[in-house]
C-alpha cells in the first residue's frame, strides 16, 4: 500500500503527548541506586543532547521538504525530538541528577556538533540528512532506549520511553520512506549529489564530528554494559529496513552510513583508530572560543508547565 504522508501527519497530530500527562512524582524514583547515578547522569545527559541536536536536524529538513505534508511532519518531528529531550531531562530531575534550573552541559563533541548544525545544517541536501537521521535513530535511539529499559528499574522510565519509542517508530517509518522516495531519483542525480557532498567542506567537517561521536557513544554504551550483540542488532536494523525498501539501496549516502556504522560496531581499522584520535583531539578543543551556544539550546526544560 502506498505511503500517504498526509495520513501520517494526521496520525502524528492524533498521538501528541505532553510532559504534563506524566506523573513525575509517581513512586519508583528511588530505584536508581547511588552506584548507578553518576554514570547514568553522564549517559542521560548525552541522550538528552543527542535528542536535542536531532531536533535541530529536523528543523533544517522542514524547509527542504518537497511538499507541504512532509514539511509539516518535519516540524512536528523537530518538536517531538525536543519533547524527548525535555522528558529525559525531567527523568534526570526526578532521579536527583539536576539542581533546580540546571541543564547538563554538552560534552565537547556535542558542543561542536551544535555549532556545526547551527552554521551548516540548512546547507545540507535532503539526501544527506535524510540518510543520516534514520541511521542515528536506529543505532543510537534503538540501542540507548533498549539499554535504559534493561538497566533502569524505575517504572516511570518505561512509561516515558514507551511514549518516546512510539514517536520514534513514526520517525523511522517516515525516515525510511523518504529515503526510499529519494532513491527513486535517477542515478546521475545521486552521483552528482554524492560527489558534491564528498567535496563539500561543510559536509566533510560534519563527518569529522560525527564519526568520533558515534564511536564515543558506542564505547560509552559498551562500557555501561550494553552487549555488543544488542548494539549490532540496532545497527543491523538500519541495514535490514533499508535493504527491504525498493529504492533505498540506490542512495549512496545510505551505503556510506551503513558501512560506517558496521565498521564502527566492529571497530574496524584504521577507522577505529582515526575515530579515537579524532575524539581525543576534540577533547582538547577549546570550546570556549566558540562563545555562547546558539539560543536554540536554551529551549530545553524539565518543567512540564511554562508559567
Amino acid at each position, binding site marked *: 500500500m502506498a505511503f500517504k504522508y498526509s495520513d501520517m501527519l494526521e496520525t502524528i497530530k492524533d498521538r501528541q503527548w*505532553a510532559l504534563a500527562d506524566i506523573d513525575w512524582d509517581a513512586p519508583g524514583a528511588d530505584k536508581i541506586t547511588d552506584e548507578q547515578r553518576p554514570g547514568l547522569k553522564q549517559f542521560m545527559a548525552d541522550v538528552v543532547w543527542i535528542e536535542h541536536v536531532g531536533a535541530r536536524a529536523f528543523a533544517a529538513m522542514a524547509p527542504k521538504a518537497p511538499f507541504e505534508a512532509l*514539511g509539516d511532519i518535519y516540524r*512536528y518531528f523537530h*518538536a517531538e525530538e*525536543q519533547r524527548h529531550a525535555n522528558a529525559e531531562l525531567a527523568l534526570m530531575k526526578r532521579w536527583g541528577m539536576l539542581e533546580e534550573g540546571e541543564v547538563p552541559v554538552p560534552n565537547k563533541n556535542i558542543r561542536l556538533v551544535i555549532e556545526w548544525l547551527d552554521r551548516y545544517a540548512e546547507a545540507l541536501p535532503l539526501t544527506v540528512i535524510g540518510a543520516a537521521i534514520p541511521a542515528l535513530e536506529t543505532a543510537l535511539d534503538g540501542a540507548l532506549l533498549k539499554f535504559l529499559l534493561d538497566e533502569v528499574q524505575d517504572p516511570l522510565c518505561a512509561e516515558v520511553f514507551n511514549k518516546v519509542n512510539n514517536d520514534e517508530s513514526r520517525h523511522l517509518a517516515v525516515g525510511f520512506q523518504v529515503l526510499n522516495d529519494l532513491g527513486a531519483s535517477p542515478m546521475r542525480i545521486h552521483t552528482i549529489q554524492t560527489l558534491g557532498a564528498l567535496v563539500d567542506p561543510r559536509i566533510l567537517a560534519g563527518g569529522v564530528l560525527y564519526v568520533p561521536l558515534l564511536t564515543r557513544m558506542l564505547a560509552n554504551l559498551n562500557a555501561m554494559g550494553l552487549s555488543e550483540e544488542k548494539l549490532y542488532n540496532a545497527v543491523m536494523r538500519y541495514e535490514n529496513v533499508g535493504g527491504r525498501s525498493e529504492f533505498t539501496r540506490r542512495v549512496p549516502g545510505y551505503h556510506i552510513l551503513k558501512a560506517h556504522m558496521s565498521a564502527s560496531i566492529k571497530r574496524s581499522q584504521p577507522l577505529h583508530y582515526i575515530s579515537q584520535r579524532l575524539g581525543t583531539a576534540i577533547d582538547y578543543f577549546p570550546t570556549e572560543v566558540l562563545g555562547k551556544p546558539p*539560543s536554540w539550546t536554551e529551549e530545553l526544560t524539565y518543567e512540564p*508547565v*511554562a508559567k
Partner: protein
Amino acid sequence: MSDTTTVLIVGAGFAGLGTAIRLLQQGIDDFVILERAEEVGGTWRDNTYPGAACDIPSLLYSYAFEQNPNWSRAYSGGGEILDYIKTMVDKYSLSRFIRFGVNVTGLEFDDESALWTAQTGDGPEFKARIAVMASGPLANASLPNIRGLDTFLGHKIHSARWDHDYDMSDKRVAVVGTGASAVQIIPELVDTARSVKVFQRTPGWVLPRPDFSHPQWARATFRRVPLVQSAARQAWFWAHELMAVGMVWDTPVTTGIQLVAKANLRRQVSDGWLRRQLTPNFRAGCKRMLMSSDYYPALQRDNCKLVSWPIATLSPNGIRTADGIEHEVDCIVFATGFDVGCKAGTPFPIRGADGRELSDEWSQGAYAYKSVTVAGYPNLFFTFGPNSGPGHNSALVYMEAQINYIVRAIGAIIEDDLRTFEVREDRQNQYHGEVQRRLASTTWNSGCKSWYLTTDGYNGTMYPGFATQFVRALSEIDTGDYLTTPATTRSEHQTIEHARNGSKVAQIAQGRKSAGALPTRSDVKPDVLVVDVGDVPPKRAASRVRNDA
C-alpha cells in the same frame, strides 16, 4: 421608504456606503442598505483591537471621490478610519437609508417579477430590482481548527471581536497567529500585559512601515489646495503600483523585496536562531506582506516570547505545544483571520434565475465577470467579488472601480428601464479563463498556502495585475457583455443601444417567459444575436485553467 426599492445594498461598510454615495451622486436615492450590526463601518467597526491600523497609507486608503485632508498620520489607526466612514455617513445623511440590525440570511431572484428578495431570518423581507452585495470578504471572524479549542477555561478573544472590558495589565497572554492583525496587536500587548507568548505557524515577510505624522501645515495645505492632496495620493498610488512588479508577479524584483525584508530582519533581530524562526519559506507576496516597524522589537522584549513549536492542543489552562510543554496563560488572543467569503461559497444562500444556487456554482471556487457580475444572477452586483483583491495596492482603489462600474450599470438599468441586466456566460468564462491563466505566474500561486487560496489551491480572490489595469477594465461597461431585457414585454426582437457607451450593441430576445435570459438554461433558447462576441470558450473553461494552474 417602501419595502420594494430600486436598489438593495447588503452591508454598511466601506463598500456599501461608497455605493450609496455614488448612487446619490447619480441622482438615485431609491435604495436601502441592510446592516446586521447597529453601526456602520464593517471591518473597521469590528476590528478595534489595540494597534488596529491599515497597512496602506490613509491618503490612499480612502475614496478618491471623498478625500479626507485631516488624516493625522501616514498610516492612520482604525479609530480614525472609522471616523472617516462616519463622517461620510453624516455628510450624505446615509443613515436614513440604512436598516440597522437586519441580518440578511438569503437573497433570491424571482423570475416572474424580476425582483430580488432579501430574507432576514424572522424579520421582514426586502425586495428590490437590483441587489448589491457589499458584505465584505473579511466580515466573519473564524477561530482556527485547533484541537481542544473548547477545553480552554481562560479568556478567549478574536482579534476582530476585541473585548475591551478585559484588563490585560496583569495577565499572561498568548497570541495565536502572526499575520497582519497579530503584528499590530503584539507590540501593543507587550506594553500592557504581564507576559505575551506568540504562537507562530508560518512567519511572514515583514517590511518596515514608513509611518509618520501629518503635520498641521500639511493638513492645512490638503484642505486649502485639494490638488496637493491628490498629488500626494497619486505619489503613494504609483509607489505601490511599482511594487506590483515584485509582489504580484514572481520576478527578480520579488527576490529584491525579500532581500530588503531580510536586511530589515537582520537589522532588528540580533539572535541567529530567532532570525531563522522568523525567516519565511515562501516567495514574498505569496501571503499578505506584513508592514511593521515595531513587531520584531516587541518579540524581543523581556516579557515576550516567540513559540514556533506546533500547537498540539489547547488544554484547560493554556496551550500545549508539540515539544511536550504546556504554556499556562490567562487569555488567548486568536489573530487567525476570517472565513473569507469571496473565494468559495457565499455568506448566505443566493438563489438566482431559474432557482440556481450560487454556493453550488462556487463550491469549487468563486468566479465572476470583472469580479462584479455572475451569469445566471441578473441585476446582482458584487463589491470585492471574485478575483478583485490587490496584493500591493489599496483595496479601496479596486473597490471604487467596482462601485463606479456598478453605479453606471444601475444607471443604465434605470434609464433604459431594463427588467434584467445579466452578464453573458461566455464572456464571463472568457474573462475568468484569462484571469486564471494570468494568475499562474503570480506570487500568490507560487506554492504557499494562504487565505487567498481554497484548500485545493484555487485562487478566486486576487486580481493578477496592476490596479491601473483593473480600474481601466472596469472603466466602461461593454453592453456586448450583457444580456438585457426591457421592463415592458414585447413580442418582436428589439435592439437596445445604450447611449452611455455605444461601442458595442447587444441584440436581445424579448418576450420570453423567463426574465433572466441565459443561453445555457433549459427554458431559454439561444435566440440571441450578438455583435462582436469573439471566440466562445467551452463552458467552464475557467475550471480547466484552474486545474492547470
